[in-house]
């Protein structure tokens, strides 16, 4: 009985120490990646390729997600608020929900799934096939050549994607309000413009930048530290999406609390 207890205690302790070590390892990676991101030389061709991949090719998925979310939001708000004769608040609720929360979070989650998984898989494959080792022997720092372009592109593209996603989401709400719920277009637009707050846009952009950092750092970290061949690549990919998504949902609360708490 005592041995079993000691065994469980030992296993738990080992797992806890590993967990703490991994967190420490991540922050060391974070610091190093951040340092090399802002240190020349910058590989502009690689940065441009990443901007195209993260920004341009994510537009359809982000656009579709936010458009339908705006539509659903308008419909649900209308149905819920009809009971209180408050249908006029639909424009405000769609606007506030999209700009403050849904736009950034949905964009973050979509990009984490699409781009984060790709980043992790690409870097992990390079790690297990010794390409990262080879880079280091060819006078190129892997952090600068591989990681920094992804961080820079994420920091640039995700805030822009969020701004575009917000606009498309609001448009989705507008389409439902006007064509299904028979709102007056000019009244709906006026209400939207009236409640549009700069602080909401700023908060949404800050969230987007933080999500960009989370997605790129987490994905690159798992990719960079991958091992064990194909299994390791799979583990890196899955872990990057799961951890990025959890961190996005956690950090959105913290940022909201800092701005509006």
């Amino acid at each position: 009985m005592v041995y079993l207890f000691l065994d469980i205690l030992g296993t738990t302790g080992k797992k806890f120490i590993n967990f703490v070590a991994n967190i420490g390892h991540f922050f060391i990676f974070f610091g190093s990646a951040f340092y090399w991101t802002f240190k020349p030389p910058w590989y502009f061709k690689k940065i441009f390729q990443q901007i195209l991949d993260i920004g341009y090719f994510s537009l359809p998925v982000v656009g579709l997600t936010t458009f339908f979310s705006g539509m659903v939001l308008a419909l649900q708000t209308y149905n819920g608020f009809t009971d209180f004769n408050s249908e006029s608040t639909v424009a405000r609720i769609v606007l506030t929900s999209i700009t403050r929360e849904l736009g950034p979070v949905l964009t973050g989650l979509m990009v984490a799934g699409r781009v984060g998984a790709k980043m992790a898989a690409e870097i992990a494959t390079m790690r297990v096939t010794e390409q990262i080792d080879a880079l280091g022997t060819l006078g190129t720092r892997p952090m600068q050549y591989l990681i920094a372009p992804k961080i820079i592109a994420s920091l640039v593209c995700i805030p822009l994607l969020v701004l575009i996603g917000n606009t498309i989401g609001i448009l989705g709400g507008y389409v439902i309000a006007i064509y299904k719920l028979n709102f007056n277009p000019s009244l709906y637009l006026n209400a939207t413009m009236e409640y549009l707050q700069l602080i909401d846009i700023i908060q949404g952009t800050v969230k987007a930048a933080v999500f960009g950092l989370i997605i790129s750092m987490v994905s690159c970290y798992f990719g960079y530290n991958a091992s064990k061949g194909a299994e390791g690549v799979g583990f890196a990919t899955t872990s990057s999406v799961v951890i990025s998504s959890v961190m996005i949902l956690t950090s959105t609360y913290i940022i909201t609390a800092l701005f509006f708490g």
Partner: protein
Amino acid sequence: MEKRKNKKIIIKVSNLSKSFNSNIVLKNINFQLLEGESLAIIGASGSGKSVLLKNIIGILQPDKGSIEINDTEIVNLPRNLKEKILLDLGITFQHGALFDSLKNWENIIFKIANKEKMNNKNGKKLAFSIIKQLGLQPEILDLYPSEISGGMQKRVAIARAICGNPKILLFDEPTSGLDPVTGSLIDQLIKTAVRTVGGSAITITHDMASVCRIADKVILIDNQTISWSGTPKEMFNSANKKIQKFIKPINSEFLFK
């Protein structure tokens, strides 16, 4: 400057040990690579040959011991200084390690293109001048590594290593997976690089025919240490049982011809 028979020591490994957790891979490894010398490292799979090479090029950190390249101690050397030393080395990895996202010609001139601006035309021209020595056709230059055979990938990796004429060449199984004719071509190239350019090379190989063709000196890694060293001829005349296991199926007279 430390010299042996008037030859400069290019790489000096002293008392190097490396383990992974409780698994000791290398213990007290000592050897020297002289200027103009071609050294072959042989040993069974998993004996630590590639680990030794990775220690030399700074990918792995030895637990103890020292590694000097051109009289500079590289263990614990700051990264920027280590990178400068590595630039003088031409390295091929066991599985090629070509960059998937770059075309073959971009892979070949990668190191040079990082140092000096080069347009595509000149880059391809330089890459072609190297691959023709390796029996490759110019058509492969515009393809990606995944679009050519494993043997061709190996040769592109060798082309990348020798691009810029580095004085120190390190090859990890350069002829594995190649047909005997191409293998012989690679051996000839290593020999040329060492004898003509005055470079030095370390080659990890299981191919005894290749050892005979390229090596001036052979070391056998077994049971975590260097258990035998000598010239290829001494190897074939050796009564050492471990060496005998390696050379048993080979007709040495035929090879040395």
